[in-house]
């Protein structure tokens, strides 16, 4: 029973990388399709639409970040991996913001990116503003990341 702790914790870590990664993959893919369409018309817009395509990719990185932090905290990457079942569950819960908000915001951000790519294709001079719209969505991924970071790093010090 005691070893269940590490399983829960690992489950949370892996799920964070997994779900956020899937979300970002879908998002970057969607934006990539739109970007490719624009580049067929005007190859010179490559740089501008590439930035917009990459924006939904950050959630995957945040997921990786949380996964990595958790892995180091629970000792999978060396150190003792003696985690009580409660702590394991806590780690799982701590990963939840990233697990849920990550993929969701990546896909929503991708939709904003697609719209912004359309904007850039028609008004290339407005590229600066076009970047801001998808970046607004990212705020929530960042907030989720923040809570996950604080929670994951905080659990180690608890006495349970």
């Amino acid at each position, binding site marked *: 029973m005691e070893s269940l702790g590490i399983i829960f914790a690992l489950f949370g870590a892996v799920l964070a990388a997994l779900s956020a990664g899937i979300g970002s993959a879908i998002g970057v893919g969607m934006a990539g399709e739109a970007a490719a369409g624009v580049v067929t018309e005007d190859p010179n817009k490559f740089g501008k639409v590439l930035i917009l395509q990459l924006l939904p990719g950050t959630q995957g990185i945040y997921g990786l970040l949380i996964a990595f932090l958790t892995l180091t905290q629970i000792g999978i990457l060396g150190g003792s991996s003696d985690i009580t079942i409660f702590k394991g569950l806590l780690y799982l819960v701590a990963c939840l913001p990233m697990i849920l908000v990550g993929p969701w915001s990546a896909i929503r951000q991708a939709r904003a990116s697609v719209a912004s790519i359309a904007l850039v294709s028609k008004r290339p001079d407005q590229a600066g503003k076009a970047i*801001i719209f998808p970046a607004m969505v990212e705020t929530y991924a960042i*907030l989720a990341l923040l809570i996950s970071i604080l929670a994951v*790093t905080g659990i180690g010090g608890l006495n349970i």
Partner: protein
Amino acid sequence: MAVLPMKHIHIYGLKRDRKQVLEILQRRGAVQISDDDAEDHVFQKADISVEKMQLEKQAADIRKAVEILDRYIPEQKSMLDALKGRRELPVEQYEKLRKEKDEIFTAANRLIELSGTISECNADIYRLQTQIEGLVPWDSLDLPLSFRGTKTTAAFVGTLPGEASREELRRILTDQAPEVDAVHVEIISTSEDQTCIFLLCPRSDAGPVENALRSMGFARPSFTSDIPPARQTQEWKAVKLGLEQKRRAAREEITGFSGQRVNLKYTLDVLAIRTEKVEALGHLLQSRRTFILSGYIPEREIRPAESALNRRFDDLYLEFEDPAETEDVPVLLENNKFTEPVEGVLRSFSFPGKGEIDPTVPMAVFYYILFGLMLSDAAYGLLMVLGCGFCLRKFKNMEPGMRKTLRMFFFCGISTAFWGAMFGSWFGDAVKVVSTTFFHKTVTLPPLWFEPITDPMRMLVFSMAMGVIHLFTGLGAKLYQCIRARQYKDALYDVVFWYMLVGGLIVSMLSTEKFADILNLNFILPSAAGRTGSAMAAVAAVGIILTAGRESRNWFKRILKGLYGLYNVTGYMSDILSYSRLLALGLATGVIATVINQMGAMGGSGIGGAVLFLLVFLIGHSINIGINLLGAYVHTNRLSFVEFFGKFYEGGGSEFAPFAFHTKYFKIKEETQ
């Protein structure tokens, strides 16, 4: 540092001088010609559409010729070419090119012609190739495909679907047309899809035979020829060869024009200049002997422009006046080398609108700081500094826009290196990983301040403190704007009250033990300070409730609006929280760098391990720089545009767009006709 003051300029002159006047103005590039003077029965604008169309047509031809050259003889381009900027054309070459003008146009036309020939040849060759391939199954037929029989016989040359043998055919024919007996059937070739047959019968039996064949799905070839297939194939091959030669010759001739590329590009530039000049001509008000030109000129350009014009013309009268208060004057910014680079980012938001200050200076300072905090790796920062510094030194002739961008990243790099050193991140924890893996002793580069990953709460507090400073600077800009416009009441209501409210709330929070506990603070403000802060916030809150809705006369409405205005305090909270991205993005860089180093170290300490480490290190860190550079750029923009500008800046000004030389390929000093 500022938005440059603009003046109206009016030039009154004789019509015969108008082209020379325009030429001087275009060369100086100091005047934006405006088009708002109305025509009357004396002064009218010239119709330039014909001339403009002609120029545009010429430019289109030349552009096409350049495209053709680029397609057939691609220019060798390297990544760094974009940094080199437009070349300056030496005067002697310029003179030479002017004389060769007709030749250049002839060359362009010939290029277009040749490209047409090539595409025609391509189409013909393709058609012939399909026909030759279609004729392959007929190769052994010694009669032409068009052969329909003799006086007494009827011939059927064509295909049947599917594979069929001679016997099978004969059997079906006798079934379908029993009355016919004398039929000669020959199978020319068979394949899985079709059988090519030659069938001969007496002319009198042609009807029933044809019907029988039809029922089997007989079809004559889709193309026909009057000579036997084998000879026809040869003939077509000969024609194809001829076409291929023609195509090759055309290509070679195009290659021969490679020397004209420069001339063509130059001509394109000249045409662009002339088009702009003709457009300017269309904006002039002209009477029979005089003209009027109106526009905007930056104040500092007035004296040089005046002296340049007066030196050349005697019969010219210049008039300058201040623009009206309500007018939407074009904006030209002037900043020093440190702050100027972020003008590009500002442009992508919007230039300052009516009555707004140039936000470049505060924006630039915070831009660099925030960017550095987000990327926050000393080695990455140094790489940026070295890369941008090298390009800036090496390519002196860089276009101004590119130079500004590189300079911006140069400063961002300095800041990144600074914060990276503060937080102890050099390619993440590369030093530690390398020393433990390969030298078996642990060496660390300690952070000058603290390591965010081990103390994220501290970093969070720092991020938010940074946010408060950024936002309060934005409010300060608003205060300055209000005072400059002598709107002292607005300054009090919209700025000072908010300073008091937000500042007071922060102070009172910092004096509570609970809050200090959450944030892990190692200090706590005395409770007297907390009480003062609370009182200040309360006064400000009342003030805001009373004044935020001050445009409403109705007191009830006014209070409601005031309460809504006070609700905006949540906006400040979310603005401040928004700066937590400094922590998140900073950690992202560091943690991914750490992951890369750990992955690299997995191969152990042998030679193989070292090679693996090097590979993973190079590829991984390149990707990490790329991704996080993008992230830092985007989110620094966001913090500037949304949080910072949200406090004082709306933009909406149009950029000063002077009448000047706007060339694509060369810098042209002189342009005479």
